[in-house]
């Protein structure tokens, strides 16, 4: 089973190292991990994709919650949610191939962000499956380089559980106001 976990963490040094170290030392396999700031400067959000049975997932969640700087963990895969993955991909674009690649980009709503004589850099965002499909289509042209952000996700509408940061934001304040 594939699960998307969303964790709000305190924006302090060492949190990523702590979380990554815990996962590694307990032997949990993480498919994807994305970290970024939130609307609060005191909080960051980590999004994990974990593959495992319910037992594994429950342990991952509980062990994450035990880390003092982890404020909250939600398994959002059970809820209606939007998931995105951003990729930059550089492909060979020999004479006569460019238009074909452009057509594929249009279909996938990808964008060409850099053009050089022999290759193209393309930006694409979307669900994992879409990104994977695009990679497969680019393979025949020759993939030169590829970078992905990892999955980020958010629950739709007004459902709770995606860690609305309002109340937590008030609790997580600057340690020392100077």
């Amino acid at each position, binding site marked *: 089973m594939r699960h998307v976990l969303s964790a709000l963490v305190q924006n302090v040094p060492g949190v990523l190292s702590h979380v990554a170290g815990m996962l590694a030392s307990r032997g949990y396999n993480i498919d994807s991990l994305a970290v970024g700031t939130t609307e609060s400067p005191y909080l960051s959000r980590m999004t994990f994709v974990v593959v495992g049975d319910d037992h594994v997932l429950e342990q991952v969640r509980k062990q994450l919650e*035990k880390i003092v700087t982890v404020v909250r963990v939600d398994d959002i895969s059970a809820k209606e949610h939007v998931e995105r993955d951003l990729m930059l991909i550089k492909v060979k674009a020999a004479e006569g191939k460019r238009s074909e690649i452009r057509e594929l980009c249009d279909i996938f709503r990808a964008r060409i962000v850099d053009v050089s004589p022999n290759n193209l850099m393309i930006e694409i965002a979307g669900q994992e499956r879409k990104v994977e499909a695009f990679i497969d289509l680019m393979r025949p042209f020759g993939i030169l380089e590829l970078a992905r952000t990892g999955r980020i996700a958010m629950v739709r509408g007004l459902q709770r559980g995606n860690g609305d940061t309002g109340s937590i934001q008030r609790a997580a304040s600057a340690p020392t106001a100077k």
Partner: protein
Amino acid sequence: MGKSKTKNKPRKSSEEITSGADILVQSLVQLGVKIIFAYPGGASMPLHQALTRFRDQIRTILPRHEQGCGFAAQGLARSTGQIGVCMATSGPGATNLVTTIADAKLDSVPMIAITGQVHAASIGSDAFQETPIVEVCRGITKHHYLVTDVQDIARVVKEAYLVATTGRPGPVLIDIPKNVQLDSCVPDYDAKLNLPGYRFESPQAKPEQINQIAAAIKRAKRPVIYAGGGIVIAEASAALRTLVQKTGIPVTTTLMGLGAFPGTDRLSLDMLGMHGSVYSNLAVDQADLLLALGVRFDDRVTGKVEEFCKHGKIVHVDIDASELNKNKAAHIPVCSDVRQVLEELNQIVEPPENLSEWVDQCLQWKAEDPLTYDRQYSGITQQSAIETLWKLTREMDPVVAVGVGQHQMWTAQFYKFDQPRRLLSSSGLGTMGFGLPTAMGAQAAFPDRLVIDIDGDGSFQMNIQELGTCYCEKLPVKIMLLNNQHLGMVMQWEDRFMQGNRAHTYLGPIDHPEAVGQGDGQGPAERYPKFVEIAKGYGCGGSQVKKQADLEAALKEMIAYDGPYLLDVEVPYQEHVLPMIPGGHTVRDMIRK
């Protein structure tokens, strides 16, 4: 949010500009810390200077090794239930604390470890005595801090205290660069906590969960209570006794749980697991209901975990949600303070109908296969030494610390603990060298009580230097050294599983026949080293005993001695800890002879 319990304590005017080092010590004083175990060095000197300014409020004890600091702090924490505090300098001082921190984590001991760090501007430059100790300790602390601003110190110490002592307790590391110790500011001892992700309130079981447990007990035909260190930590020992009084259910405890239920009680099945009693392991195997209270289904308890209590319903109560369903799935998992569960359960619980047949069965097992040893042996066996010590001291309410190995298991089997916090044992990490410094810490907390370190010659030598602390700091610890000249537990495994091939388990000179397993079972006439001379060299009392007939008098002399004392007891090395369930096996594979 949690509140400091020290509101009414006197404090310095918070208008005064104070150095970081003084703020740290003042914060500890405000939290009620009376004793700190600290070893100085370049990066922690300002902290030590500050400690001298608070001499009247906090006693600083100087162990002879940083590991001694950490274990002494644990000795204080484990014997009193209060927080233990230790301090070391940067680099090697800090890394010498690491084992004690890992030990405190596995046994859930509330501890604050303070380390000096190099100047903040030098961090990351591989400066002299620099170690990234927070990085090293991330996975083995409950929480950790690298303080970079003097204004944070008061808040960080308060947070560290609260995190270490609430919920499932554990060690918290505070790493303070030297410049932050020297910086000053107007301290704010009431600074707001910055712990948005930490729950201070203990989880509480819901009434329907209590009802479920009560119903399971009422229906049970063969129930057993499996009680652990959580009972001790939650101060739930009295509630556990009430539950047993009301229901008549037999009790087995883990190593950490010894004393949570009286070892001398008729319904005590003693310790379970690898070196547990035959009857406790049989009872758990046959049980139709296992009440697992404050335990974590450690592999040393369960053996082959799939077979453990295979046919029984399992109720698992623990304050740490991640322990539930971790090693063994529970039918009724309850995340709660175990004392709350027991106290509420005691309000409504009814005994199972017709339990007598099951209790008789358990008592029959106990009578058929008691914990025993060769009482005909001409010299002194480890077991008889421990049993004799127990008989002599049971009325004195002593605190007993142990090292790790055979003597630890024999103490668990033959010293009957009737009260919690009387046995101090490195149970999860199994750290040799634990006994002496831990006893020392307990003695510092209880200057007038009898504190005994039952040790092995291997374990004892790992922190033998603390004899100096015991003497110089006037800590009259009594050491009963069970000297078999071997690393007994490893040797036992060699004998059982490796055809007796001695692989570096003999602690005497390498030209002795015992070094290659060719000895006669007794060992040389004089053991190496001369422990009594070492003890005396440190200023402690000491003597040696070799004959069973002299044992009691020698122990009495040890107990009566005014000051630290070492009794070197010569014991044979062919004794094995029995019974034994080999790792990953079941009660059916138990070795009894």
